[in-house]
């Protein structure tokens, strides 16, 4: 019996808990991408950099708070700085829309043009980040690092294997739940939120119903900026802030949005977790788990790993390509080809 528990603890420690955290981060990122796609109808290649720039604003505010001696107890100070970062990111996104994207909306440009334009925005954001904060890693998590340490767990339960839960992981999941609940409440229960869904569903009919397109676009950018900042901050707290890593995250996020059904908020959440858990499950070395579960004689020598951990990102790309070929509308049938 204790063998099974030990095996479960290993899985929990290396796959399930990290998966929940990573999945939450991807889900929030995918939610932002899917919103832009639903309302503005293009794939925003600059979303990764938006996450990075939002996080950068939060980091700057965090440093300000820290140097003023303000802390948040066991929780990361960054959470206090979050509203400031979100506000700055919103301003940036609205300005970008006004200066860059609005012109193409008036032109009714095709999706590809928007994509290339968003690549330009990506360059600019990336350059801005390097200019302001530099290309080096920044660690800005503070407060209590672990809620439960491996050793404490072993002592408490008497098992061989320990389960460590970091504060940032719990913060991630809780923040994600709150944010997602807020987004869904907004979209399903408020007049403005419903008007956004209507606009995404049938633009002409929405215009006919008197829904103001500029207002819908503005709210979409506000929400996306906020979501990007939150997602980026949570990721940065959990790991660290490397300006370049957010470009790499772009593909798992797109994968999550598309796999779940692009344009569909529920799909974005589901997709985030599907991608996160797939990455972890496929690249995990099951050797110790298997050792616990099978008789001694059958214990494996090899790592029992499908793909090496180096290929973690590749897993999400493979899933994405498969979904694009087999069911492009995704699990929850978002907007299709």
């Amino acid at each position, binding site marked *: 019996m204790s063998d099974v528990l030990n095996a479960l603890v290993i899985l929990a420690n290396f796959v399930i808990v990290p998966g929940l955290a990573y999945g939450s981060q991807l889900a929030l990122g995918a939610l932002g991408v899917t919103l832009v796609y639903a309302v503005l109808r293009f794939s925003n290649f600059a979303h990764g950099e938006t996450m990075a720039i939002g996080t950068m604003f939060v980091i700057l505010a965090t440093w300000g708070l820290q140097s003023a001696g303000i802390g948040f107890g066991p929780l990361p100070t960054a959470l206090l700085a979050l509203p400031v970062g979100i506000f700055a990111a919103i301003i940036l996104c609205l300005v970008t829309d006004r200066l860059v994207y609005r012109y193409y909306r008036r032109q009714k440009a095709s999706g590809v043009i928007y*994509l290339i334009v968003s690549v330009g925005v990506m360059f600019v954001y*990336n350059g*801005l980040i*390097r200019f302001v904060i530099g290309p080096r890693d920044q660690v800005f998590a503070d407060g209590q690092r672990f809620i439960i340490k491996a050793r404490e767990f072993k002592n408490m339960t008497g098992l061989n294997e320990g389960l460590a839960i970091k504060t940032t992981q719990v913060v991630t999941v809780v923040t994600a739940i709150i944010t997602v609940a807020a987004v869904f409440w907004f979209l399903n229960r408020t007049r403005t939120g419903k008007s956004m869904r209507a606009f995404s569903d049938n633009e002409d009919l929405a215009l006919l119903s008197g829904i103001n397109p500029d207002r819908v676009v503005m709210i979409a950018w506000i929400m996306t900026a906020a979501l990007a900042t939150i997602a980026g901050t949570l990721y940065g707290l959990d790991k660290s802030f490397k300006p370049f890593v957010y470009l790499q995250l772009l*593909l798992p996020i797109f994968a999550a949005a598309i796999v779940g059904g692009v344009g569909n908020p529920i799909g974005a959440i589901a997709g985030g977790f599907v991608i996160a858990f797939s990455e972890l499950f496929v690249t995990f070395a099951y050797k110790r788990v298997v050792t616990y579960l099978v008789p001694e004689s059958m214990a494996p020598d090899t790592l029992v790993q499908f793909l090496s951990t180096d290929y973690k990102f590749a897993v999400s790309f*493979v899933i994405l390509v498969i979904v694009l070929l087999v069911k492009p509308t995704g699990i929850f049938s978002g907007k299709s080809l």
Partner: protein
Amino acid sequence: MSISVRNLSMFALMALLFVTVGFMQSWDVSLALLNMCIISAIMALGVNIQWGYAGLFNVGTMGFAALGGLAAMLVSVPPVQGAWQAGGAGIFGGLVAALLTVAAGVYMWRRTAQLGRRRYWLTGLVVLAGYVVMRAIIDPAVEAIEAVDVTTSGFLGGLGMPIIFSWFVGGLFAAGAAWVVGKISLGLRSDYLAIATLGISEIIIYFLKFEEWLTRGVKNVTGLPRPVPYEIDLKQSPTFQSWASGLDMSIETAASLTVKLCYAGLFSVVLLVVLYLSEVALRSPWGRMMRAIRDNETAAAAMGKNVTSRHLQVFILGSAVVGIAGAMLTTLDGQFNPPTYQPLRFTFLIWVMVIIGGSGNNWGAVLGGFVIWFFWIEAEPIGLWLMGALTSGMAPDHWLRLHLIESAAHMRLLTMGLVLLLVLRFAPRGLIPEVKR
């Protein structure tokens, strides 16, 4: 013909820029820049063939360039005997197993069309089983190979042939990969094609980074042989020494410049050949048909043109050109270094080249390649100079001055992005617009 005069003058201006760099910095820098510009121009040509002829938005250039580089390495590096003995058979067996798995999977897929949902499960199981078998065969072989002479090799090595063949082979590798990628993803709509190609190119890079038995992974393969003389040999040759002193140049400079000029010569030949072939293709009936398809796909399909296979042709050709350029790049670098293939520098920067130069126009792509690469590299010295000039009034250790100067190097990303946005908005047809025929 005012258009031609305008285009010529732009190229002349470009040449002038190289000369300026030669005088203000050094001829060495200028020539190094020239060589990279030529390679970039060829890559931009490849992308333009896909975008301009067929409207295909391929964001996977990085992968094809890397495959070209792989070819350069594999063709030119001598084989590592010990490794082949240790694991060659296993690798071969593993590849056979992989091919059989793919074949079995495809067979299973085709034969079970009527089973509905079960089809997915069955095919998945077959592929999974085949994968496990392949790993069982290939893993021990990989370990054995990587254990041979870990510090100096730890991989299979190559064919040990002259590296210049690899340029052609690079094109073939890229073409082969493009065939697979195209078959899979060309049915997708443009946004999705972009994402799919980006994803696939990332997978290729990962493969090259981590399959050390093939590529030495991040440990790199250095010291690749060259198609041009080595500086050391030149410096020791008496004829060269007398020639250099006759020109009143230091032997170092002379050797360095000569090597670069040799590369420049070779690269220019390739560029001109590719450009010539591209222009011929553009004006041919094939080219006209391609553009007809691009401009109105539904009409073309209604007229009986096989749109998908045409798209595949263009995709393969464009990617092959990128592969050739990738091989040339690795030749110039003298080493194959998988981590250097970053999407920003390869894929997106080349797209900037194509857009700025004039999408749909081959000469435009070439000019774009030159212009963008030039400013990408020169942005740092120019930026430093600019920052220095702007902050000349401040104290030397003022925090803003230091920060600005330190960030000057990063200006190029910002500048490139701004240039792209400005061109897309105010001059969307680029420097040399497409000529409507």
